[in-house]
């Protein structure tokens, strides 16, 4: 605020006074330039025919060739369908659960029970993807895994769950819900903790029931943060996590588990088809960005809440 009142001279003095701050940010800014901005420029590889000897800059331009190849490839619609399908499924199944958990926990008075629920439900978040997928595989192994034994116990046929394409999305999504529901609820719990206690007192004076209180005080309090989280999740619809899907994939379920990120990895790094793979990746990020911007725009129009 003091800077605003001053003129150019003042700003210069300010800059001199803060030379140490400039020195401090130097390293991180250098990091951002090298590891974030250089790859952004490197995206041009998607419009070139990459040649290892000539490098990114020396390789010849080919326009949208790689994009066209991708659009016409037989995999195109399958990849789009799987990517959006898995992502929307995760969103619809996983989004409401943490909110419900936060609302329920908010009704419980602080104590041993509440702390136990929180501690236990947060824990799976810290399990690594490799271990998580191993757990899924072990639990679902035919004959030995606990789920299949339960099936046998109930008289259902033995199934190789991870080998059935139709099951893949559900296994992926619900194991994700299991792993993240507790941790994802933290942000909503924080929002509920910020509600003015006088609102609850007033509601009690007016004779509102617990349910009414949840509907008329808690839910409206969660609206802004919910919209923010929704924008963020919709903005990453095309960015389904690579690691977990890649690790859960096998030849049997490939028809429903191949998504854009796994495809980019396989074609690009395994197949050394750099330019084509980069084009697929760029196409994916562009859709993501457009989605994020439009959802943010709509949210701002409808609810006055947005990311910026």
């Amino acid at each position, binding site marked *: 605020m003091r800077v605003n009142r001053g003129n150019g001279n003042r700003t210069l003095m300010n800059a001199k006074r803060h030379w140490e701050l400039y020195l401090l940010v130097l390293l991180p800014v250098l990091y951002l330039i090298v590891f974030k901005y250089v790859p952004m420029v490197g995206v041009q590889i998607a419009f070139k025919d990459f040649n290892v000897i000539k490098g990114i800059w020396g390789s010849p331009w080919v326009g949208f060739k790689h994009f066209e190849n991708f659009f016409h490839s037989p995999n195109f619609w399958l990849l789009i369908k799987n990517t959006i399908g898995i992502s929307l499924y995760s969103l619809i199944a996983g989004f409401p659960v943490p909110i419900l*958990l936060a609302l329920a926990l908010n009704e419980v008075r602080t104590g041993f029970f509440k702390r136990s629920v929180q501690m236990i439900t947060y824990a799976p978040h810290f399990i690594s993807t490799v271990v998580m997928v191993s757990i899924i595989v072990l639990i679902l192994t035919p004959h030995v895994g606990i789920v299949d034994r339960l099936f046998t116990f109930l008289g259902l046929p033995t199934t190789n769950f991870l080998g059935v394409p139709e099951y893949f999305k559900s296994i992926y999504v619900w194991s994700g819900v299991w792993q993240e529901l507790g941790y994802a609820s933290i942000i909503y719990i924080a929002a509920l903790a910020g509600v003015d206690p006088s609102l609850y007192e007033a509601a009690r004076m007016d004779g509102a029931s617990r349910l009414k209180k949840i509907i008329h005080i808690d839910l409206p309090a969660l609206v802004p943060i919910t919209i923010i989280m929704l924008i963020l999740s919709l903005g990453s619809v095309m960015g389904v996590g690579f690691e977990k899907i890649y690790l859960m994939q096998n030849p049997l379920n490939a028809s429903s588990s191949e998504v854009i990120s796994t495809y980019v990895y396989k074609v690009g790094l395994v197949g050394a088809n750099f330019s084509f793979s980069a084009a697929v990746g760029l196409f994916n990020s562009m859709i993501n*960005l457009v989605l994020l911007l439009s959802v943010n725009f709509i949210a701002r129009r409808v609810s006055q809440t947005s990311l910026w």
Partner: protein
Amino acid sequence: MFSKNKIKEPLGDRMLLIVIYIALTAVMLVVLYPLLYIFSSSLSSPSAIVSGKVWLFPVDFSIKAYASIFRSTQLMMGYYNTIIYTVVGTLINVVFTVLLAFPLAQRTFPARKIIMIFMMITLFFDGGLIPTYLLVKNLHMLDTRWALWLPGALSIFQVIVARTFFQTSIPEELAEAARMDGCRDSRFLVSIVLPLSKPILAVMTLMYAVGHWNAYFDALIYLRSENLFPLQYVLRNVLLLNAADPEMLANTAQKLRDQGFEQALKYALIVVACIPVLIMYPFVQKHFVKGVMIGSLKG
């Protein structure tokens, strides 16, 4: 004070509360059961696992699987590498994050806005897998430890959280008073801000450390030499590709192998892989809740 006037809760409210308690208990059990099952299986005999006797508690208590894990040089190497990646990587992360977040929190810092925008842009656009890989390759960092430390040296999310903390928890008067006394910015950061920021530093360290401990993807794309592989990469080979280190199976009779010793080994491996995080977890659990809350306040 008003306890005498406290009205007994109406029936509907008590019913709702009962439903909530039941639901929360159910959720807790659903989350807990698989973890308990894996732990119990890891302590059961292979034959008990294969014949499906384990449902809740260990059957035919046995620590053979654990014993053979510690024979595996591959795995011990993985452990050793992961510790190096985690310690050095987290140190780099925390230093970089503070170096960026502290100046961004100083309201009088002229370049604050432009650096903020410069930083936020990287959240929305990024080069993607291939250009990043080629960069790491051109920097000659392929198949070196640097590939696991430098490309992810900073998380923008953590910078925002730390900046918000510095802004909201360190009073501006403190900075002014310090400057009046001739305290330079760097001195202010080291002697005043950092000692006051222990909670946020703890949360940040945990988040970054868990990230390094669990990281697998970077090793997959950047590393080729076996002696550099982190734990998660070794785990993936053993657990998912069924490529167990022969040393783990040494001294194990063929008959025992047929009875599902490898299965028992996997359960034990999962437990061993999770132990460090599980030990840390109870100590920092309440801190990270605070950390997310600080982050969610937004600056």
